[in-house]
Structures are given as structure tokens and as C-alpha cells.
């Protein structure tokens, strides 16, 4: 089937293969590989996107169900050049190692700051509880987001 939706502010029309997920649609049909596939079960958050204002695992959303919705991916958060302040804080804090979880963490952090501009460490942890990072031990991610929470332009 053909679905129409808005991705990162741009209207797109895409062919959906059954039983494709929104993640497959983004990666394979729309050429947006920033959202990662690591577990296919919604456990790791590597595929996190914002769907009509809600943080979701795009691997758990049927592509057909995303018709007429608005989706923001990591590509839509990144400015034309350089980094969003949240991304920049993560870079400086050493919150990136292999980087496979990183786009999902960026998206989850943006969602957190939209709801809570100055989160505590506990609130940061609860907001990112659905994002698994196997490299960093999370310390640098928490430090980055604590700093970003005081510095993000809002």
C-alpha cells in the first residue's frame, strides 16, 4: 500500500511492504538510516522516533499505522550543519562510543527536554530507561544531559 506522512517536516509518499515497520520504512524506503535496528522488540530504544509528539520505538509501529502522522527522527533533530545543543553536550561529555544507541538517545533526550527543560538526574534516568547503551555505562550520557538541561535554548 501507499502511505502519506510527514517526516522531519517534509511530506512524503512511500510504498509500504507488508509486514513492514515504521523503522523499515524510514531506513529502507526513505533513506534515513539514523534510526537503528538492534532488537526488533522495542527493548533497546535504538530506533526511537517522535511520532505525533510521542516517543516511540519505530520497530513496534506498523508502517501502515504511521499514515497521516508526523514523524521526527534524529536526522530531523540535527541542524543543517553541526550539532543540536543536546548532541553537542553529548560529544563534549564523551557520551558516544560505538554510537549505535546514540541516535535513539538523542531522540529520547529531545523528547525529555520538550516535557521537562531542567530534569534532575533521576528524571533523566527514568526518561532514558528504554534506551540501552552497551558501551558507556551511561555515566557520560547522564553528565551530558544534566549539562544540556541547563544550557538548551528553549
Amino acid at each position: 500500500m501507499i502511505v502519506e506522512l510527514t517526516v522531519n517536516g517534509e511530506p512524503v509518499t512511500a510504498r509500504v511492504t507488508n509486514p513492514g515497520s515504521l523503522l523499515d520504512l524510514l531506513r529502507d524506503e526513505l533513506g534515513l538510516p539514523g534510526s537503528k535496528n538492534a532488537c526488533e522488540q522495542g527493548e533497546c530504544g535504538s530506533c526511537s522516533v517522535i511520532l505525533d509528539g510521542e516517543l516511540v520505538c519505530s520497530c513496534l509501529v506498523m508502517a501502515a499505522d504511521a499514515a497521516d502522522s508526523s514523524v521526527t527522527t534524529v536526522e530531523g533533530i540535527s541542524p543543517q550543519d553541526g550539532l543540536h545543543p543536546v548532541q553537542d553536550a553529548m560529544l563534549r561529555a564523551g557520551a558516544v562510543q560505538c554510537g549505535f544507541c546514540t541516535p535513539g538517545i538523542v531522540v529520547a533526550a529531545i523528547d525529555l527536554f520538550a516535557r521537562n527543560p531542567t530534569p534532575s538526574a533521576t528524571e533523566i534516568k527514568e526518561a532514558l530507561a528504554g534506551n540501552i547503551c552497551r558501551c558507556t555505562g551511561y555515566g557520560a550520557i547522564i553528565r551530558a544531559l544534566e549539562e544540556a538541561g541547563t544550557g538548551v535554548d528553549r
Partner: protein
Amino acid sequence: MSTRTGRRVGVPRGVVRDSPPRPDGVPKLRGEFEYAQDLSADGMLWAATVRSPHARARVVSVDLTPALAIGGVHACLTADDVPGRATFGLEHPDQPVLAGDEVRFWGEPVAVVAAEDANTARMAAAAVEVRYEELDALTDPDEADRRDEVFRRMRIRRGDQDLRGPIVVEGEYEVGMQDQAPLGTEAGLAVPDGQGGVDLYATSQYVHVDHEQVVASLGLRPDQVRAHPTGIGGAFGAREDVNLHIHLCMLALHTGQPVKMVYQRSESFTGHVHRHPAWLRYRHEAAGDGRLLRVEARVLIDGGAYASTTSAVLANACYFAVGPYRSESVSVDGVGARTNNPPCGAMRGFGAVQVCFAYEAQMDRLAAALGMDPLDLRELNALGTGDSMSTTGQVIDTPLPTIDVIRSLQAMPLPEPATSSHHSELPGGSGLTTEPHHVQRGVGYALGLKNLGFSEGSDDYAQARVRLTPDGAVVETAAIEVGQGLVTVLAQIARSALRISQVDVAHVDTSKIDSAGSTSASRQTQLSGGATLEAATRLRERVLAHHDGDQLDDDGVWKGDELLVSWQALGEEGWEETVTFRHPPTTGPDENGQGVIHADFAVAGHRAVVDVDTELGLVKVVRVDTAQDVGLALNPQSVRGQIEGGILQGVGLAVMEELVMTDGVILNATFTDYLLPTILDAPDVEALLIEREGSWGPFGAKGVGEPPTISSTAAVAAAIRAATGKELNRVPIRPQDIALE
């Protein structure tokens, strides 16, 4: 030639001891970094693997017809189609590329298919009809030992074997099977070159050893295969062994089209090796004052169906069976069993993790038997520079600040008892299950010792090349960046040696440079870093001598205040220097396990603080503080990243991570069922870096990746014992072990 006056040579930015942002950080944060999963090529086919549903069975027949009848399927290959050597293996080529007459573990590849899209490939793999006749699977490693089904036996004897001590503690310990669970699954793309050769881009820790195995099994000349480093989402040991590499190249050459394969998560759990489960029996004997007189250990690990690195993991477990301690007399016997369980191989810590859990439990029990403080007992017996390894007799001639590690841990302040009853502070978390009055706090310590680099006489080397271009310098290497920050530290080393700021690191394929060795054994900063330092240093000396200059910086070659050659002109002169760096030579063991077995050592200690809900058996790891011997921290931020990440993998093994098996079948091969620590499980970490000069690594650096994972598990286990008073001789420690035993 231009002249400037009053000009002093520029100070480069991003040199060693700095923590510059990693060069791949921006593309990773923007979602633009290319991982193996993201590769594509025109006309690309997708591959999938047919796997054994049995731990052991005879393959009666394989019928490919139903798969080939599906539209869009281009190839189905079996063992009969392997053009060269039928087997592969990291150390011993004993594993079939595709199983022939018999499958020997659950998930073993039997056939591979290529089709026009991923779904069709998976449908075709499911359509291949394999008839099996199930055979009795050997899944008990003790039974394998009795039947002499072993990959290696180890025997270490040192000192007077009749020596006995008045204080004796004995124990039996067990370590479950941990998975590396890197977030990126196995993935790759093979592209035929049209002349009978192939280019391979696949997840790897060691492209040259992939190359060797692909060449052998494809029956090609080495120059016909090029293995390219590619972006990978973590490794932790899981990517040393070949898995999809040969399959992809076979399919690409068979179809004449590029072929891509990506393992799904459940397939990844069967498609790579795991940390060896281990069974350990110990007897420590000490004098009345606490001096260790004798340590006896029996180490049994389950290597699974094929060799992988079991021989080396077993050896490491035995060499480090006493830990960072002196003992007058030692006896260690080791067995690497061959079973029909999933193959096990490298994971961060490589044998040293399993024994550390056991010997540190023994040290605590010995301290209790002696009525001594556990850290005082460790300090009394601490192994240091100039001492001989209790197991191998090797004299330690690089800095080993064990006592400094112990004293640093002792001096770190303990956290206040939890005062809040907010659920985020309680073991039950947002499940709201913990009653605060059931919470007991415990504190535990552990120390671990690990070799750095390859051991036992292997010719361990890394090659690196430094080239000058009009844009700066480029470090070329085939060493794999798995996420640890090699790409940052090699550039820092080159900047320090050349004294320029503009340095990039380029990953080049196997045809363009010799091996860098594996990104494992905590070795790349020392080995590839050593090669980079020597190449850059020599290059600078040659350039200055050639131009008769006295300084080099980003502007070019200087003599005094005079710029002799601009960087642009220098970069067009074609300067390059290639260096192959070797660490000090090692030897294999003699019949008693004695020898100069290891190139270097690192010691670390951990102090864990836990809160345990003793009623429900739930554990919250509050803090894990550490002191680690790092030689010199070339990039303190990256070192801290390795420490925090390594500690959390150790915490995972202590309280949640285990592949659960019945009759050789993994029961929890998904992220839903194999529990990984989340951000809510992560303890706070304070890390003290113990820096001492004298290692042979660049600027005195030591490898730092593995020590955080060696003793963090043991420290958490000790803390839970302190909180509960239970023996807890097995990790991971499950709720029922605390609440029901």
C-alpha cells in the same frame, strides 16, 4: 621560501593527555555514521542463513528445491559449495563453514541463501528442507572431561607441592554464560570485483584474520580478497571470530552480485561466541599471619562445539587463577571442554573474569577465617613490580601498583546510607515492591589482574603508516575502532609526535597495510599506538633532516624563525613512514606452565556498595568505585568511558546477564529475555587513575579496556554477601539465590 620574524612554533591541539572530541562523534550523533547495517550497493541481493534446530544431529538430506522455487531467490548454497577449505577457526580451523554430515550445536549454519530482498531471503531459508536424525548431545562439560572431549588441558605447578598452611578455605564457584550483546548485530556486504575476487565489508575486530580464513575457504589467492574495516556497533570479543564473512563472499562470487546480510537479534545470539561458563574449585592455605602459602585451583570451562579461542581463554584463566597475589606454592589444573553447547570464545576479560569471581571470594573467606580486614589481607599478599607471578614464575618488570590500588580504594569515602524512600533509591525501583525496612546495605571489594596484548609466544604486532598530505597528516591502519576511541587516541599520539594539530585517522583494507592485530586483549592503544608513535617520530626526524629544519608545525618546516617549507609544499613531497611495532617477546609454557608468558599486566580494584531487598532478593548496585593501573592516561575521558562501561558489564554478570540453556538450546536469545543493564541499573562510579611510568606502551600507556570488567563482578558479589550473609558462589546472583536459598 618565506620568512617570518618574531614567530614561535605553534603548540598543537588535541595531543596526548588531552581529551579531544572523537572525530566520528559528529556523524554518530547526527545519525550519519555508516555501520555495516547501513551499507548498500547497486544490484544488491540479501542473504539469510539456515540453522540447525538441534544441538546435535546427523544431516540426512538437504532439499533446496522449495527455496529455489520462490521468485527472487538467486542462490542456495550448502557445504558442497564451499570452494576451498571446508572449515574455519580463529586459532584452529575446526568449524565447518556450513555443516556437512553432522550439526554440533543449536543454531549451526547448514545453508545460506541469497534473494532480491531480505524478506524473500528469510522465506527461502525457512523453505529449505533439512532432514535430521537427532543424536545424543553432550552438554555436560564434566562428562566431556571424563570422555577426554577437550580442546586443551592446562597444568601449572610452582613451588613446593607439599607445602601446607594452618588456615585453609575451600570453595566451589560457578559463572554463567554471558553474552557480549553489542548493540549492532553482525552485518556485512560482499562485492564481487568481476575478476574472480571479492571485497568484504563486515563487522570485525580483526580484518586480517578474517581475510586469511576467507581466502582459505574460497580457495582464492590472498590478493583476490580485500577485507575492509567498516563501522560496527560494539564488539566486546564477539567479533573476533568469522560468522557471516565466508558465507557472504561465497554468495557474492556465486551470483556475481553484491550480497548483504544482517543478523537479527535472536540470530546474533547464536551467530557469535559467548563468554565461557566456568566451574571453579579452590583451596587456599595461609600462615597464621595471613601470608598465602598455597593455592590449588581446578578450572573447568565449556568451550562448546568448536575451538574458537577456548585454548587461549583456558590458559588465561589458569595463569590468572591466583590473581594479583603472591603465593609460595601453586597448583592449577584446567580443562577446556568440547560439548554440543554453543561455541564460546572471547569476551572482555578473556578467562580472567571467571577466576577472579572465585579467587576474590576465597580471599574474603580467608580474611574471615583469619579475623583480618579483607583489604589488609590483600595488601599483605599484593603482587607488585619485581615479584614473580605466582603461577608462571614470570618476573614482573613493568609497573604493577597493586598496593597503590588497594590504598586508593581504602581512602575513597563511602556513601551515606540511603535516606530517601523514593522508589528510585530502592532495589524494587518503580515496581514499588520494596519495603524500605527489608533493605540491607553491603560493601564489597575485589582486585583483578589481566595481561595486556597477546601471550604465550605469539608474534604479536601492529603495523601503522603515517603519511603527510597538503591537508595535514594521516594515520593509516587496519585496526578496528569498535567504539573505544582508538580513532581519537591514534590521532593524539601522532599529533604529539609530529607536533602538528591536523591529523586524521584512515581505516584501510587488508591489501593496503599489514595487520594491526585484533582489537582485543586491551592491546590497540599499546600496539597500534606504539606503531603510530614510532612512525610519526621517525617521519618528523626524516623531514627535519632532509630540509635541515629544527621545528615542524602546522605551518611547515622551520629553522629558527624562518619558515623553510610551507605545509602545503611539504604535503606534496609524498612523505610516509610505515612501522611494524612488536611488544617484548613472550614464550609458551613449559610442562609446569612456567615461562615469560605475558607482555604486560594491569591491575584494578573495585569497591561495590549495594542495597539488597533481602525479602524479594532484589539488588540495587548503588556505587562501584575503582582505582585502575593505566600506565599513563593518553585520553582521560576515553579511559573513564572504558572504566564506566566495563564496570557496568561486570555488574551485568554479577546480577542479571546469563544465557540460559537446556540441552544445548538457548532459552533467552532476545533482548526481552536476556537482561542487560539499563540506565536505572547503572551505579555511580568514581574512578581514580593510577599512573606510573615504565610500561612499553606509547608514552608509558597501558591498555585499559578489560580491567574494569575483571573485578567489578566479584566486588558486587562480595557486597551482596556482606548485605545478606549468604555464600552466593554463583553469578549471576538471581533473586531466588538471595530470597529463597
